[in-house]
Every structure is written in structure tokens, then in C-alpha cells.
């Protein structure tokens, strides 16, 4: 299959996913993965010898991570740091340790593959949690803000683990650390000044500037023997206030990323799933799902009981959701050879299951009473 044919197929699958999503109200990202699975397993679409697709997919994942970081509300996080750190860290550590131990001791995966499984299943989907909070009218309440902050902490834990557990360090690690520190301190004021001078001019310079900075940090991370998720997330976090002040630039970045970059990321993930592996590993998938959710409950419920005091099962279900970071971690594992296609297929299926099932259970049986401000 030549490059153009694959390019058109991937973009076509993404377009189809968007059209179906509009009709059925199902996530575009999940549909892109599913259509990728169908294309690879039943329509003969192959990515063999196409090195551009993993690169594009990687850029999509990195930009998505940056945008996720840019959605962090640092002011709220500072207000609730103790509670959000407690819930967020336990929400990361519980499933990370449980999935890692289960993969290593029970499934017999090797050490690094087991660590990768732990990282991929440690995540919480901030965006899904946000939607569920909106549905209960709690997104703007102190509890809602606390939970969102906790989700960001969990994802930060995932990004740190992904960056440092599999690192093959070299001298560039010092360059990377210096670049991360410098970007955190100097990039926000510099970008604020640059945006005010460059906004509105031809050439979309501010958008290119953000792309360049994020990809430069990704390149340095690659040189340092790690990968781009952590610097992308931290730059996003550092620039969250500046991006909030420049919504037009943020909107353009988001449109470009969601329309043209993340489809490569999600469709590529689907194209690498083997249905045969999913079917033969169905039992493992079910057990891993319960390992993740069970460990989330074990970590989150006590912390939620202490810091929130109500709806602890609902909160644990929210923190059990996962999608983007789980897909990023799984794809990273496959790309670098830490896990094979069979393990990738199992992990990605568990990740997608955790996007859907905890959400449905929370909506169906554990919706808390509406927040006072949402009552009519």
C-alpha cells in the first residue's frame, strides 16, 4: 500500500468516525480506534513500511498532551493542593502497582512490559470526568474542581512514570531537564509578549510558535532517551494561563490538532490492534479491567471519604475512567518494542473499556443528588 493511499484511508476513516459520532453521539476518538481495528483486521489495510504514520501519530499524541496540560486550572489546583494531591496520587499509584504486579506475577509479562501495563492502566480521563461532573451540575462546585485537579495529578504521575521508568539516560537528560525548567520559567512571559505582538498577522505565527516549542521539547526528550509526553504536559501546564488569555490561538491549535493530528494517533492505535489477540485474551482483558477499577477504588475511596465525605463510589468510578493517556502509554510501549502487538491489543481494549463501562455504571446507578446551584 503506497503512502497516499494510506493517508487517504486514515483521513477517510477519521471523517467517517466524525459523521457516525454526530449521529450516534459516541466519541470520535473511540470510533477512530474501532474503525482502525476494522480496517486492519477485515479490510486488509496495512501500515507495514510506512514510517510516516507512527511519526504523525506520535505528534498527534504529543499535541493532545500539550492541550490537556493547557486545560489545567493552576489557581484551583493550588487552592486544593493537599486533597487533590492525595486523591490524585493514590488514584495513580493504586492501579499502577496493581496492574504492574498482576501483569508480572500472574500474566508472566516481562519486567518492562509489566511496568508499561501499570502505567497504561493508571490513568484517569480528565475530559470524561469533566463531562460527568457537568451532568451532575458539580463541575463548578469545590468538589468538582477538587476532582478535576486530582485527575491532573494522576495524569502527571502517568507522564512522569512514562518518561522516567523506560528512560535510557544519556548526557542529553541534563539538556532536557534544563529545557523543562527554563520553559516553565521563561516561556509563559515570553509567549505572552510574543502573542501580543504577533496576533492577527498573516502566517499564523503564534500557532507555529507553539507547535515549534512543543515539538522542539519532544525532540530533546527523544535525544535524552525518553519521550515527549512529560515536557509536552508541563509546557501545556505552564502555558495554561497564557493560552486562556489567547483563546483565538488556543482554538486554532485545538482545531488543527483534533482535525488533522489526533486522527492519526487514534486510527493508528486501532490499526495496530489484532482482533485475534483480543478474542484469545478476552479473559485477561476482563481481569485487567477489574484490577484497574478495583485498585482505583482501593486508592480513591479512602481518600475521597476523608477529603470529600460523600458519593465516594461515584468519585472512584469517575477516577476509573481512562482514554487518552492510556492510549498514549500503550502506543508508546508498542512503538518502542516494550510490548508486542498481542499485549498492545489487550491493553488498548482495557483502556477503551475503562472509558465506557465506569461512565455507564456511574450514570446508571451512582449519580449523586444534584448540586444545590444546579437545582431549578
Amino acid at each position, binding site marked *: 500500500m503506497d503512502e497516499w493511499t494510506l493517508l487517504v484511508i486514515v483521513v477517510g476513516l477519521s471523517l467517517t468516525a466524525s459523521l457516525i459520532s454526530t449521529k450516534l453521539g459516541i*466519541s470520535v476518538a473511540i470510533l477512530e480506534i474501532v474503525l482502525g481495528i476494522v480496517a486492519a483486521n477485515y479490510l486488509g489495510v496495512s501500515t507495514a513500511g510506512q514510517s510516516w504514520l507512527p511519526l504523525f501519530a506520535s505528534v498527534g499524541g504529543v499535541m*493532545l498532551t500539550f492541550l490537556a496540560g493547557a486545560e489545567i486550572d493552576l489557581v484551583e489546583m493550588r487552592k486544593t493542593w493537599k486533597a487533590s494531591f492525595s486523591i490524585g496520587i493514590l488514584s495513580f499509584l493504586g492501579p499502577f502497582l496493581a496492574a504492574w504486579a498482576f501483569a508480572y506475577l500472574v500474566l508472566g509479562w516481562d519486567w518492562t512490559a509489566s511496568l508499561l501495563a501499570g502505567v497504561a492502566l493508571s490513568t484517569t480521563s480528565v475530559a470524561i470526568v469533566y463531562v460527568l461532573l457537568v451532568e451532575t451540575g458539580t463541575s463548578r462546585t469545590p468538589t468538582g474542581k477538587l476532582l478535576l485537579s486530582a485527575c491532573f495529578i494522576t495524569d502527571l504521575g502517568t507522564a512522569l512514570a512514562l518518561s522516567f521508568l523506560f528512560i535510557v539516560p544519556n548526557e542529553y537528560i541534563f539538556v532536557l531537564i534544563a529545557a523543562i525548567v527554563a520553559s516553565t520559567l521563561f516561556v509563559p512571559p515570553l509567549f505572552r509578549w510574543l502573542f501580543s505582538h504577533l496576533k492577527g498577522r498573516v502566517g499564523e505565527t503564534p500557532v507555529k510558535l507553539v507547535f515549534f516549542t512543543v515539538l522542539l521539547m519532544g525532540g530533546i526528550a527523544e535525544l535524552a532517551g525518553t519521550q515527549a509526553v512529560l515536557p509536552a504536559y508541563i509546557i501545556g501546564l505552564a502555558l495554561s494561563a497564557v493560552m486562556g488569555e489567547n483563546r483565538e490561538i488556543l482554538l486554532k491549535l485545538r482545531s488543527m490538532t*483534533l482535525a488533522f493530528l489526533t486522527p492519526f494517533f487514534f486510527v493508528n492505535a486501532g490499526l495496530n490492534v489484532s482482533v485475534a489477540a483480543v478474542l484469545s485474551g478476552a479473559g485477561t482483558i476482563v481481569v485487567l479491567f477489574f484490577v484497574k477499577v478495583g485498585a482505583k477504588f482501593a486508592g480513591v475511596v479512602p481518600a475521597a471519604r476523608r477529603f470529600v465525605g460523600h458519593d465516594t463510589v461515584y468519585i472512584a468510578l469517575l477516577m476509573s475512567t481512562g482514554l487518552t493517556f492510556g492510549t498514549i502509554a500503550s502506543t508508546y510501549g508498542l512503538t518502542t518494542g516494550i510490548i508486542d502487538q498481542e499485549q498492545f491489543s489487550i491493553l488498548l481494549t482495557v483502556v477503551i473499556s475503562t472509558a465506557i463501562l465506569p461512565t455507564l455504571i456511574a450514570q446508571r446507578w451512582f449519580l449523586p443528588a*444534584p448540586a444545590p446551584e444546579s437545582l*431549578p
Partner: protein
Amino acid sequence: MTRTEGATPHRILALTDGSPESLAAVRVAAGLAKSTPSELRILHVAGLSEYPVLIAEADVEVADDRGQLILGEAAHVARSLGVDAEVVLRHGPAVTQILRYTREWPPDLIVMGTRGRTGARRILLGSVSASVARRTQVSVIFVHSTGVTTHSSRVGSHPS
């Protein structure tokens, strides 16, 4: 026995999604509210992308703006018939949120539009009206392009 059988409704809940059928339902509900008389509330559930990858992708502000427009139009329809209705905006899966609201503010009667989806479209898209009718204990009036159908939870049937 359902709450409205043989009784005058005191609380009427009209559901609207902005469609012509749902606006017709608001008209029917307003007419009933005026003649009985009853308190009328109009509920719109704004759908969100349930599994987004970014918070911004949930499009809450867009859904809110659209929801307010839909409710404004529905309230205007009720007002034109001489009924002041309270409007309520909720987010999320329509059926879940409708049933949830009926527990917070138990109505005596629900009035809703139905598009009469059949075949593959009904299987794929489901039917909010059918699901609500199946799962509520409250009597329901369906308003569709060809007329009005009543449904009581005791009857247990639903117009196709």
C-alpha cells in the same frame, strides 16, 4: 394506578429538543396547563460528547447556548398561549436526565414529541420517548406530526 388516571394534573412536564414535534408538545402541554390549571415546566437535556479526549471537546458552552435558545423558544410558545412556564436545562444522556428530573420534581403528566423512528434508525438511534415511557411511572402524552397519543404506565404500550 398512575397518578393522573381520573385526576386533574397539577404538575406538567414538557420535554423539548427544539424539534417541531417537541414544540407541538409544548403547545399541547401549555393548553392543558391553562385549562386545568397546572404548573408547567419545560425541560431540555443538552447532549454532550460523553467520551471526549479534551475538556474543550465536550462543548459545554455551545450546548448551553443552544439549550437556552431552545428553551427560550419553548417558553415563548407557552407564553403565547397565556402560560408562564419555568424552564430547566440539564446536561448528559437524555433518558437518564429526564428520569432523574422527574424524581426531583415529580410531575403528574409528561408531554413529549416523538418522531416515530422505525426500523434501522430506531435500532441505531434508539428512541428517547420510548425509553422514558418504559421507565417512568408517570403518564405520558406523545405528540407527533399526525396527532396525539396518550400513554399510561399501566397500559405499557408505546406508539411506533
